[in-house]
């Protein structure tokens, strides 16, 4: 039996009267990459928002290491070890790279080890160290993605939620982001990855779920979904 870290069941959510997610259920196993793939508008970001506490669901349960996650405010979720790297990076443009990173460790649980965490992020992303004094708004898209990743790592998460980390990046940077994700997995992090870039995401994933119009229509290991006719037809254009 695999060790489940995050368990989602019967999740319905939306914006105002518009329901986006319908009866979503999935598990994230400890130590590994779980991926949610699906087209634009399938509901990936909505799931991430619910998990991070930015959107209250209509119904459903989410447990993280056995505890009810939905009862916690967003900052308490970060403090409890769930960290979101949001879609579109969302760095703080008027603050320096270093300030952005240090803000990442604002959760009380992360504050103590804050200097080592910063050195660790700088080791992982040397570019950020070079640019530590520069305003985050002046970084390139790829660098901002590195910064968003680094900022998320500063919180010392046990579960990293990555929402479309490769969106709008040049192919070279896309490669680098996936290399980083593989490194993080090797380092023992648990990752839930939402991606449009299905091929690479599935090659990397231990477990994968296919989303269509707010419903999970297929689940399996990465290679299983990669080999599935549905996935190939709909998302890989083969």
């Amino acid at each position, binding site marked *: 039996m695999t060790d489940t870290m995050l368990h989602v069941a019967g999740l319905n959510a939306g914006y*105002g009267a518009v329901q986006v997610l319908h009866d979503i259920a999935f598990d994230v196993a400890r130590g590994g990459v779980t991926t949610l793939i699906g087209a634009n508008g399938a509901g990936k970001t909505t799931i991430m928002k619910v998990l*991070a*506490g*930015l*959107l209250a669901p209509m119904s459903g349960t989410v447990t993280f290491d056995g505890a009810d996650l939905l009862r916690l*405010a*967003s*900052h308490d979720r*970060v*403090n409890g070890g769930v*960290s*979101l790297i*949001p879609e579109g*990076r*969302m*760095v*703080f*443009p*008027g*603050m320096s790279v270093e*300030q952005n990173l*240090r*803000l*990442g460790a*604002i*959760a009380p649980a*992360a504050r103590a080890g804050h200097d080592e965490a910063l050195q660790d992020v700088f080791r992982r992303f040397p570019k950020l160290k070079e640019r530590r004094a520069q*305003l*985050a*708004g*002046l970084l390139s898209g790829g660098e*901002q993605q590195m910064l968003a990743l680094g*900022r998320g790592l500063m*919180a010392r998460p046990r579960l990293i939620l990555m929402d479309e980390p490769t969106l709008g990046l040049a192919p070279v940077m896309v490669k680098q982001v996936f290399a980083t994700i593989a490194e993080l997995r090797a380092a023992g992090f648990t990752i839930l990855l939402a991606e449009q870039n299905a091929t690479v995401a599935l090659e990397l994933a231990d477990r994968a779920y296919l989303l269509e119009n707010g419903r999970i229509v297929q689940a399996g290991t990465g290679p299983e979904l990669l080999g599935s006719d549905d996935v190939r037809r709909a998302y890989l254009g083969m």
Partner: protein
Amino acid sequence: MDTLLSGQLLFAALVSGSLYALVALGLNLVYGTLRLLNIAHGDLVMIGAYTAFGAFSLFHLPPVISVFLAAAVCAGLGWAVYEGLFRRLLANPTLAKRVEANSLILFYGISVILQNVVAMTFTASSRGYQYLDTVITWGGVSMTGNRLLTLIVASAVCFGTLLFLRHTLFGWSLRAVIERREAAQVVGVNLNRVQLITICAGFAAAGVAGTLVSMTEQITPFMGFPFTIVAFVVIIVGGLGNIGAGVLAGFCLGLVETYGIALTSPGYRSILIYGLFVAVLLIRPEGVFSKAVRS
């Protein structure tokens, strides 16, 4: 020409500039972090002024002490307004979208209540007291002690706040909320706590400004509105939610007003202030000092 170059005029400009900067600081903090349009802000200046006046006339407390009392009273009002009105509104995403427009009406109501409560308690007639009003001459510039104190305290609070925002983790988290509210939540900033502390601090700054005003001017329950207007002009000139630029804009408005009046006549005061306001809205609606950095 001599008057224009005199230290006297510069001193007068700095005194009113520092006061404008301080009044606008509180409004800007509250607008930046909570997106609330507090048109009762000037009435909080009035509450601060009456607190200092009451403390002086009833308990003989000098303004240097009652300034803390005024700050506490206004911070308490901030707490009551946040917990009683806005906490739930801001927590609900649907209501939060409309809260900016609705806050204008809510604060209008608060403004009317504050003015009338004070008018009932202290009557509507103007009040004043004398404190540090002897003239001292220093380097050829004659000034009253209370104006010098106004300049010192208002500048200290403004620049102290800017240093706090620049160098403390809490200050950074406040700026994070101003820049990107949702991202601040994602990072783990306790939004509720930042909002509560900011509204209390913003209101307290108005209370401090009110205490300073009460030392040099006659006060009435209806003195607040001009301060609200000045504060809005300052933060729009500086750039909404841009705290440092707002302080700079406050001093600039003091300079424009004082030198403008010296060149023309006191009758032109409103024309100068509104003229600057309209000019900025036409030429640089995002604020004169706003940085172009946005990703």
